[in-house]
Structure formats: C-alpha cells, structure tokens
C-alpha cells in the first residue's frame, strides 16, 4: 500500500528580496506509512516546520512532489485542496497565536463541523463537547475564550480542533515547546493516546530527540534542509549512524547525576552554518568531530548504513555517543 503522505526531491525556497532566496529544504525524500508515527527532529532553522507545512500544502515547493493518499497534490490550488483539508490537520507550536482570541473555544470547534459535516447547531455542540472530553477538558471550556485558558489547556483545544474533522494525517509542529516542562509530558501522552485510538498517521516535529523517539516508530533527522538520518526510533537513538544524530543523542542528559557526571559528551563547535550560504560538500563538516578532507568536497548521499536505517555520511557509524 502506498504511504499516506510522501515528499520526493522536495525543494522549498523563500524569497528574501530581489534575487535573494533562502533554500529551507533541499532535496528531501520522506514517506509517512499509513498509521505510522514519524518524529522529525533537528535544530532551529533546519526546515522542520517548513517540511510539515509543505506536506500539508500550506506552502508550495519550488521543486519536487508532494503526494497525499496516492494523489500528487503539488500543484493543487487552495480551492482544489479544500475538500482534502479535513483529512490533514495541524497542531500548532504556539497555542497562544494559533487560536483566535475573539472566538469562544466552542465555536472554534463547531464551525469546521458545520461547514464540512453540515451539522446543525445542537449536533455540532454535542460533537464539540465530545472532543473536549477526548482531550481531557471539561465541557464548560466551550464557553471560554483562549485568554481564559492556560497554555496546556490551549494546546488541548488546538488538538481538539485538529481532531474535529477526523483527519487521517496529523502534523504536530513542536506541540510542546511553548509549554512548561510539567505539561509537556501530558500533551505528548495525549497525542500518543489519540493517535493510537484513532489510527492516525502522525508527523511529530520536535527538537527534543529523546521525547520524540518515545512516541514514534521512526525518526528522521533534519540538518540544514536535508535529511541526514532516518530509521526506526529505537535504533536511531541507540545506534546513531550520523555524527550529527550522535551529537543530538549525546546532548540529552541522563537523569542520574552520577552517570551524567561521568559521561563524555560530543560538543559541537560553533554555530550552525547559515542556510543562506551552506558549506560545500557535507553541510555538517564544519562542525563535525570526525570530518576529513573528502567531507568538504563531496556531499554524501542518504544511503542504508544499517538494515532499515539510512544516513548521509561518508563515515556512517564511526562516531558513537558517549
């Protein structure tokens, strides 16, 4: 069976000014099998959110294809996408900016139901109450405005809104990074719960590799607009093949202070290179602890480094996290 959503050779550029472009994604191939949960990790500016938005066709790629349920939707205009929209939904990073401050929570949930499902006022309200219950909010929340809710509650509303139209694909764009630490685990657990209950296909965008890998089957690591590693979540975390992934794994502290103190960590030198002028060869080589001459000349292709696990490195697997 074909994957639910897929991008092939995806290139996304943003116009910064006359003749100036930022290439946010540069040749990304990624597939989301039906019912799978894929975590997309990488540092700020790596193109994670851009990939999520392009997959939902909120952005139009400069090159490459976007496929949804076997349909090539790359060139569809908004009018043509509209009937497809209910099947692909987004949970936003910022639960403050993504809810209309002038709209009561109930109406934010009922409007799409009334438009797409043709539900009457009472039916839509009943459905909204169910949705609120699903995400662990009291039914009375429907009458509230977003400013009366906490960050965690707002994100629950955001999830309820995304679930309202019973999508097949859910893209969660750093759904917990704006929340306080205690709330994060709850929201991640909620996403995992609804995903399993509804057999959703999930793209979880995160910069926290440890958190993301807990609730996903597969992990893709994005670096400067390119996938540098992709594989089963457990393998990527335990046996990272790309030195950048190894550094990300190594950056996760161990909760046990004795182990943490004795642990050697891979510390990357310097800032990530500017995506406006990516370095030649392997884009990671200026910061790579194991870079050699070839890395500055030739860009390594993404290839199988271990069974089921792909990495874009000339020396895949040589650097293990301490």
């Amino acid at each position, binding site marked *: 069976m074909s994957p639910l959503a897929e991008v092939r050779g995806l290139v996304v550029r943003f116009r910064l000014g006359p003749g100036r472009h930022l290439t946010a994604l540069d040749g990304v191939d990624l597939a989301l099998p039906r019912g799978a949960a894929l975590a997309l990790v990488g540092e700020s500016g790596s193109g994670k959110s851009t990939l999520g938005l392009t997959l939902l066709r*909120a952005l139009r790629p400069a090159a490459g294809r976007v496929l949804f349920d076997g349909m090539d939707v790359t060139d569809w205009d908004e009018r043509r996408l509209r009937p497809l929209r209910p099947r692909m939904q987004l949970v936003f990073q910022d639960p403050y900016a*993504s809810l*209309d401050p002038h709209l009561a929570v109930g109406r934010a949930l009922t409007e799409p139901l009334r438009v797409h499902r043709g539900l009457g006022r009472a039916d839509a309200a009943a459905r909204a109450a169910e949705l609120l219950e699903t995400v662990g909010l009291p039914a009375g929340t429907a009458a509230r405005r977003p400013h009366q809710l906490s960050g965690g509650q707002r994100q629950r509303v955001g999830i309820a809104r995304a679930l309202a139209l019973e999508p097949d694909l859910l893209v969660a764009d750093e759904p917990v990074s704006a929340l306080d630490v205690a709330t994060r685990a709850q929201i991640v657990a909620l996403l995992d719960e609804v995903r399993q209950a509804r057999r959703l296909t999930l793209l979880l965008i995160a910069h926290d590799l440890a958190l993301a890998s807990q609730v996903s089957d597969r992990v893709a690591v994005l670096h400067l607009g390119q996938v540098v590693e992709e594989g089963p979540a457990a393998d990527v975390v335990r046996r990272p093949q790309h030195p950048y992934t190894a550094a990300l794994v190594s950056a996760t502290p161990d909760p046990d202070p004795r182990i943490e103190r004795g642990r050697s960590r891979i510390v990357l030198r310097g800032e990530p290179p500017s995506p406006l002028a990516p370095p030649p060869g392997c884009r990671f080589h200026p910061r790579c602890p194991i870079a050699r001459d070839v890395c500055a000349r030739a860009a390594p292709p993404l290839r199988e480094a271990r069974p089921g696990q792909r990495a874009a490195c000339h020396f895949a697997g040589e650097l293990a996290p301490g």
Partner: protein
Amino acid sequence: MIAQDAGLSRRLLRAPRLRGPGLLLAGGLGLAVIVVCTLAGPALAGFDPGHVATADRLLPPGAGGHRLGTDQLGRDVLARTLAGFRWSLAVALGASLIGAGLGTAVGLAAGWYEGWPRAVLSRAIETAIAFPYLVLTLAVIAVAGHGFWALVVVLGLVSWVTFARVVLAESLVVRRREYVLAARLLGLGDARVLLGPVLRALRPTLLVVAAFAFADLLVAEASLSFLGVGAPLGTPSWGSMLAESRAYVFTAPWLLYAPAAAVVLAVLTANLLGDGLAQRWGGAGRAE
C-alpha cells in the same frame, strides 16, 4: 477637499489634554446629549420646525416662547436645530455604512488576494485618495438632484477610500497570523476566513475609522448644504441654516449660534470617541 477641511477642523477641535478614559467619558457625554436631542427632536422645542409665521420673523431668543428666537421666515430656531440632528446624523450614518461596507470589501480583497487583484485594487485606492471629491460631489448632485439618498450615496462613495486604505494595511498584518492559517487549514472558504477571523481582528480598527469618518461626513454634509447642493430647500439642515443666517449675521446673530453649536457638538463627539477608542486599543487609530 472635503477630507482636508475635515482634517483641519479635527485638529482645531481636538481637545489636547484629554487621555484615554477622559476622552471616552467626554465623548460619551456628548453622545448622550446627541441621542436625547435626536430622539426627542423638535418636540423638545414645542414648535413645528417647518411652521412659517411671517409675523414672527427674526424674533430674538426668548420672545414669544421661542427660546432661541426665530429665523427670517418666523420658524423656531431651536426646533429647526433639533430637527437637524435627525437629518445630519441620518446622512452621516448612511454614508458611513456605505463607505464602511464598500471600503472594507475592497480592503479585504486587496489584502487577501495577492498578485493582480491586489495590484489593481491598490492602484484604485491610491487613485481614489488623489481624487478631487468636492468637484465630483457637486457634479453628481447637479445631475442626480438633491435629496437624502443622493447625498447618502455620494458621501458614501467619498468615504470608502479611508476604510479601504486602513483595512488593506491592517489585513496585510492579520493575514499572517497563525489563527488565520489555522482557519485556512481547516478547509474554510475565503469568505469564511475573511468574514471570520480576519474581520474579527479588524473590528476595533474599523470602529475607530468609522468614528472619524462619521465626523468627516457630518462636516461634509454641512459644507454641501451650506453651498446649497446638500439638503433640499426647506430641510432643517445645519449647513443650510448657517447659509441662510449669513445675511443676518449683524442683525440676528442668534440664527448662527444654534446650528454652529450643533455641528461642533456632533463633530467633537465623534472625534473624542474615535480618539478614545484608538488610545484604548493601542495604536489601532490610524485613521488620519
């Protein structure tokens, strides 16, 4: 030209020291007076505003029960001024609604649809800003004739551009908000997104612009009536009352005071409310 006249009067009339709540309080008081005068109307004066009594012409205030005197035809000045509230406010309100509707529609469309629609509509707005409106208004009324609806429509077509310009500027910001993207990703149509989250975000700005536009239109109506191309002959309009009073400025100055005070009250109130709302909503008042 009308807009410039109104801008000048706004600067002259603006109370410089009032801030925030004070502005709204003063504006609210003015509004209360206006509402009472409009609702009670000429009944408050005890005379019919259209009643001609040549025997009682040009009576000074107080004489014969006419509290503000009578005009050159013996009509009660207070009754006519009070009747003027209904006329002036109705014209300004009707024209504001037309201007707000048309201007908001154009501004929203120009803000939402990138490419040629925005280019065409933006040029249209710029052209309209530069247009000599008093000339157009005079021409249209000369052809279409006087009357309430002619005046309302013409003034509405004068005021749309203020709304369009502000709505365009604001919607270019609002369209980038995440909750607007959220509405689009829910598969809601353009009309639902524009009239939903986008228009909701524009409401404070629209209210402020409407208050200033209303003040401009009051002055515009009075100006046109003063020039004799606004209110039909005999209509108790402040502008025509002022025009008629000119011949008697030295012999019967009371003809001037009441309509002039009414214009000042109405324009000042609208500006106070506009400024007050603009300050309250922090920077939403880009009406000028």
